[in-house]
């Protein structure tokens, strides 16, 4: 059965037995302000395009030739950008389309939305919850106001606490906090404080990412641009970065969080189903500007430009090597992968085990503790 990039014809898959769980990613590329480290598909000052964009988005959902498969749609993820910038009526539109057109079962699906503190008040959070959105992922990044400034965030720590309380009041029972470490000039003690503050809020899920400073972002100019000799900010040393990661792993585990993916921790049972589907190389469909899809062994993505997206442009196919991708994605999960998935890569696995980066535990090949820190040395063997 084939499902390449949707070509706006409705070709129905013939083999109806091959149903697999399906995730849906919906990209909302609008922000009030672009953050200093942001290298994602998001734009500030284009709010006037929101209506046209949502119209096109709903159209894309309608036109997808994957309709029949969607009865197994079990996760939806609104990512951004800042999805909470949208008025709730747009979510109502999208979700009712999914229910009608793709038979979304609100009771049994994980429906996540990303949110930035201060971009929605209690009333809006309540409205989102009442539409069936049941998981909220808050872009906290840091509780330290100085570092929030460096990152170019529009909120301060007080906004975070208020927003978190509002979210709980609105009935969100599955909340994730995103935290970033290895911020320029950040000390280990400051990071420890961030982790402790996060734990005190008792979130259900925590993601801790180390900051990637990408070329072309303002933060790059502040830290790494070779044409600038006196940096305003100092990049964290690799030693400190490792100590920060180590601290997060130890402390979160001691507080009952399950470390299930390199950067992800959760209360048992609160692992993010939508993301698990990525790491397990399930099928997912991405709609909206810059969204990526992976269905039946094929990958493609939409244009990153909002204008182009609205006016209609065909998706770009991506070369995909299923087997290798499944290995480097799957190894991000701490449970690893069954050893038999590595046939053809025995030599690589042996070398990596010799280096102490991989181990075989009861027939599953997984990252060692050391491997968690040096994952790229493992993953690069599978590209």
């Amino acid at each position, binding site marked *: 059965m084939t499902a390449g990039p949707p070509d706006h014809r409705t070709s129905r898959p013939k083999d109806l037995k091959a149903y697999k769980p399906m*995730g849906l*990613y919906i*990209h909302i590329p609008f922000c009030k302000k672009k953050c200093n480290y942001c290298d*994602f598909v998001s734009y500030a000052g284009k709010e006037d395009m929101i209506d046209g964009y949502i119209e096109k988005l709903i159209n894309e959902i309608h036109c997808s030739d994957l309709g029949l498969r969607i009865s197994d749609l079990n996760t939806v*993820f609104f*990512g951004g950008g800042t999805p909470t910038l949208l008025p709730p009526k747009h979510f109502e539109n999208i979700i009712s389309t999914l229910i009608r057109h793709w038979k979304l079962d609100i009771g049994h699906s994980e429906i996540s939305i990303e949110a930035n503190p201060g971009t929605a008040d209690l009333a809006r959070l309540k409205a989102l919850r009442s539409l069936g959105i049941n998981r909220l992922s808050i872009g906290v990044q840091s509780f330290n106001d100085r570092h929030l400034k460096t990152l170019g965030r529009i909120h301060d720590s007080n906004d975070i606490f208020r927003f978190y309380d509002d979210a709980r009041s609105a009935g969100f029972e599955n909340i994730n906090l995103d935290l970033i470490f290895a911020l320029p000039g950040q000390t280990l003690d400051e990071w420890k404080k961030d982790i402790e503050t996060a734990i005190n809020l008792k979130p259900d899920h925590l*993601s801790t*990412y*180390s900051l*990637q400073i990408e070329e072309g972002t303002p933060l790059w100019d502040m830290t790494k641009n070779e044409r600038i000799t006196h940096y305003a900010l100092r990049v964290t040393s*690799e*030693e400190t*970065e*490792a100590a920060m*990661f180590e601290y997060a792993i130890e402390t979160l585990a001691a507080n009952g969080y399950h470390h299930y993916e*390199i*950067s992800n921790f959760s209360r048992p049972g609160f692992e993010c189903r939508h*993301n698990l589907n*990525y*790491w397990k190389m399930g099928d*997912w469909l*991405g709609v909206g500007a*810059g*969204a*990526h*899809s*992976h269905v039946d062994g094929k*990958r493609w*993505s939409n244009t990153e430009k909002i204008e182009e997206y609205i006016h209609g442009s065909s998706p770009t196919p*991506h070369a*995909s090597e299923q087997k290798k*991708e499944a290995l*480097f*994605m799957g190894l*991000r999960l701490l449970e690893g992968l069954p050893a038999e998935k590595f046939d053809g890569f025995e030599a690589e696995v042996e070398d990596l085990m010799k*280096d102490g980066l991989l181990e075989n535990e009861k027939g599953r090949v997984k990252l060692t503790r050391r491997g*968690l*820190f*040096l*994952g*790229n*040395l493992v*993953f*690069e063997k599978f*590209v």
Partner: protein
Amino acid sequence: MDIEKIRNFSIIAHIDHGKSTMADRLLEYTGTIEKRQMREQVLDTMDLERERGITIKAQAIRMEYQGYELNLIDTPGHVDFSYEVSRSLAACEGALLLVDASQGIEAQTLANAYLAINHNLVIIPIINKIDLPNAEPEKVLIELKNVFGIDKEDVIMASAKEGIGIAEILDAIIKKVPPPKGSNDAPLQALIFDSHYDVYRGVIAYIRVVNGIMRPGTEIRMMGSGTDYEAIEIGTLKLGLQPKTELGSGEVGYLISGVRNVRESRVGDTVTYSRNPAESALPGYQPIKPMVFCGFYPVNSGDFEHMKDALLKLQLNDAALTYETETSAALGFGFRCGFLGLLHLEIVQERLEREYGLDLVATAPSVVYKIIKTDKSEELIDNPSSFPNPVEIESIEEPFLKLTVFTPSEYVGKIMELSIDKRGEFKGMEYLDPTRVMLTFDIPLSEVISEFHDLLKSCSRGYASMDYEFIGYKPSDLVKMDILLNQEPVDALSIIVHREKAYYKGKLLAEKLKEVLPRHQFEVPIQASIGNKVIARETKPAMRKNVLAKCYGGDITRKRKLLEKQKEGKKRMKRIGSVDVPQEAFMAVLKLGS
């Protein structure tokens, strides 16, 4: 052609003083080239020459003007190629000495002018670029008087760019440059002053007939190498080759003789007839001796044959380039290459990379050391890694240069400091005018080939210029310094240093290597040692964290690209033992003085 109507001349100048533009203007003015055919700087044909603004290979072109035949013989403008300059000048009776009106006399003005004077050429002094707003022709007139004793009234004021003074220059060439002396009746003697390899025609030698008449279809002999060939085609040079049935005494032209590479028709050699040979060759022939050596290694060992082929092709056209295969324990199979100087080295490296698409590792350049062993035998060594055991060495000698530096007087202090730091021995100082000075030093070649020129430029804000000539070998207290990475010696990083500077350089090199080596899974000790004694040590810490952040919105492609980039980066490095060494590490050795 009536020999009385022939004028053979060169243009000599310091780099950037406008030589190529002047040549263009002369060709245009004499109608040799139509204006619309004119590509700027016609004589520089190699891309690299255009880009670097220097003339690497000499060429010649014939102009006709007022019934005269004017042969312009172009000369390379860089000190590395001074032997080629001297051969070009040997083919002339006159030289246009071009001096920039704002820069004044520079090191290569002087060096080239002395070469011309030594060849008894008539000098026509020209102050060029007088149209520039910062031109100071009066000052340059004083310098010309002080340095060469040239009178004001003999100097032509010109601007090649604006076409000022061109007619005057052409008149001076006809009136002042004497016609060639020589006899059509004497046995053939023709000087090869340049040659180049053409894919279709083989080697094209540029010649100046000194005596006799050259005709095609006869057997000729290269007197230096003693080999015979047939003169297949001869002719004169305009923008292309113009075949002729004879070239008489005094004429300049080309010779195609089935020679397959330029080493068989060496610059400076004399061509004569095999049957009625001249009694002796023309004076001044020298086999070319490379002065600077370095190892070129393909990063990818599978490229060895490709590199060999590329060097062979480059050598067809570059008689000064030498190479032989060499093996390094660290780098595998590669080539030990010999060059006239550092610029020559850089040009060859660039051509290998650019024209032949090779990724290569170049080891630090070395000079040829003379080792006097305890058994009194002598050995010449151009590679630090083949240095004999210290107990077998009685003494070591290294090549020295006479270095001439021209500078505004305010930078004298800094230049003295630099030269003495580079083991230079101060020899003398002369004022050209109240503000400009000529300094001379004896200095080891090994100190000049690294980054001396850059340092000289930076300590004089770009105003100082330099030139040098080889003066011979002198004893020095030298030792071989080895580098060990993760306890393993890396032969390609060994260098020869002066004993007094060994500690300082060892420390500096270890620090630089620490900077450029990537982190590995393990700690990498970096040691500098002399014999078994470690004189400096640094440690590159182990890699602590290297893992990708989240897969945003299922974008696997982005993740793959990052991993692929990381993998590619490793491939471009050379694995030595268990350590991945980037090209910058080998370059680090070069930059030890700053």
